């Protein structure tokens, strides 16, 4: 099965689409699964690249989520990209060209800071608040950087890998207490 046929079966278009002309220089791209283009911008190139995509009529930012690679700092990444613990994954969609692009930004190890996409796509406001709430990733000039899902006085960010699942031991055998 030639690569083009394999790529198509993974849901993307036949070939990998090129970067938009206005993209900042030096953005590393790779053939990422099930999307037409995978980019690995650094935190500096991040905002410029997303604006370039927006001008290249990628009308909608579909999804933004954080991933915590605590145990896999040495995961397979295209050369020239240093894998850090936190990673922000942004999914852009162009309705007119029917293409999807996925950006993976390395957001740093203990104090992840990325600038917010609110001024480009207002729809990302809640997603960024969720990424902050569950992972502790800070977003520069975000209008309302507060928790969204957890109660206000909750300490810690639950979805981090070093946060316990919080399982309560379940008594199956003859349980001493009433329950």
């Amino acid at each position, binding site marked *: 099965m030639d690569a083009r046929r394999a790529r198509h079966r*993974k849901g993307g278009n036949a070939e990998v689409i090129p970067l938009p002309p206005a993209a900042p220089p030096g953005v590393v791209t790779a053939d990422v699964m099930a999307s037409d283009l995978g980019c690995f911008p650094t935190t500096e190139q991040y905002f410029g690249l997303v604006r370039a995509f927006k001008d290249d009529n990628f009308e909608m930012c579909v*999804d933004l989520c954080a991933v915590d690679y605590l145990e896999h700092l040495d995961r397979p990444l295209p050369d020239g990209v240093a894998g850090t613990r936190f990673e922000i994954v942004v999914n852009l969609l162009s309705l007119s060209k029917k293409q999807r692009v996925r950006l993976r930004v390395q957001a740093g190890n203990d104090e992840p800071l990325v600038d917010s996409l609110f001024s480009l796509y207002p*729809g990302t406001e*809640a997603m960024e608040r*969720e990424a902050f709430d569950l992972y502790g990733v800070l977003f520069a000039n975000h*209008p*309302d950087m*507060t*928790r969204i899902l957890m109660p206000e006085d909750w300490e810690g960010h639950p979805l981090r890998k070093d946060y316990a699942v919080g399982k309560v031991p379940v008594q199956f055998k003859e349980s001493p207490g009433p329950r």
Partner: protein
Amino acid sequence: MSDPTVRVAERLDILSAETSEGAQGLQERSKTDKDELGREVGAVLRLSGLTLDPNDVDYERRDDETMIINMGPAHPSTHGVLRLMLELDGEFVLRTKPVIGYLHTGMEKTGEVLTYVQGGTNVTRMDYLSPVANELGYCMAVEKLLAIEIPERAIWIRMLMAELNRVASHLVWLATNGMDLGATSMMIYGFRERELILAFFEKTAGLRLNLNYVRPGGVAADLPDGWEDDVLVICDTIEARTYEYDELLTGQPIFRNRMIGVAPLLAEEALALGLTGPLLRSTGVAWDLRRTMPYLAYDQVDFDVIVGTYGDNFDRYAIRLNEIRESVRIVRQCLEKMPGGDYRSQDPKVTPPPRARIDESMEALIHHFKLFTEGFHVPVGEVYSAIESPRGELGCYLVSDGGAKPYRIHVRAPSFVNLQAVPLLMRGGSVSDAITVISTVDPIMGEVDR
């Protein structure tokens, strides 16, 4: 000794401290900065920049003229535990801020603890009105990572169940929307039709809700024999009943006054906010993943994408009503074109062997044991697969580190993003319009809070 079950506090503010969410809630105007105030008022970025037309956002309004009130978690018409903090000027809504998280179940954390085989049960409880859509999004992501082919019959069974689930979800929407507007008889009709579909689900998958029927590699069980006439009965009854609902609701003056022209939405605003599904299609943008990025076998099935013009509540109602008819049309075509063959991929690494063979062959026993204790291993990689759920684009972003458990599972919930249109749609309308806005945006809190 005070009665242990009665919660007394010397001062009321101790009690109120427990339920107040501080910074997440709506603050007085003096305490909120311009950007957040613009967001709460519902100003949305247009291509020409953040349009905060000055007369629309009145900063100098003093706090004692308006009243901040909770349309809180335990409210009959917020469709679940959504808490809306509204700033009211008499009857009219000036600012809204949805406070969510009251149904946060930590499903993405539990998803990382369960194996791929068990993941379906966790994901299916997210959008509890269309469980098949959740499982389908999750299983397609896993299959893309595994790069396995699923048999033809499984594809068509999945399409049949997904469309029946879309009809059931839209029927519940019609029911609760009718009840929100006072047409309580619509509630009874909606749930009566839905029982037909749930009976069929119970017959095929064994459960009415949260089916866990779509599994990585195909479908849990084959369709029960005699399913053709069940589905035929469902299609005919529901098709006929949609014209009854049309008659019941569309001509009704109260329904028309509360739905026509209320909460209009522009295509530009919808795209900027990332809305998908009936909300986006009501503004005239013809974007339906089943048509534009076909998955399963939607390209071999003939159906129409329903698109609105004004983007107001009435359009969203008309879209959902006609989508029921389209889905029934798809179900009829699935009925005719349902291929034979096995319903689950025969790859022993993914599908457990049939029960009978376990006693005969040792190898089948090993496969069975390994699959159900440790689960199958998925190669390293990450994938994002999206399907069209009744509420919009439901995406599943899966990162696997080669183990039997997903390293990271993130579900892009359409309701979570569509909920951001609520401040924009409610701005300036009365509280009764606010009720219809929540109903037509149709957020499902299980999916919003995950």
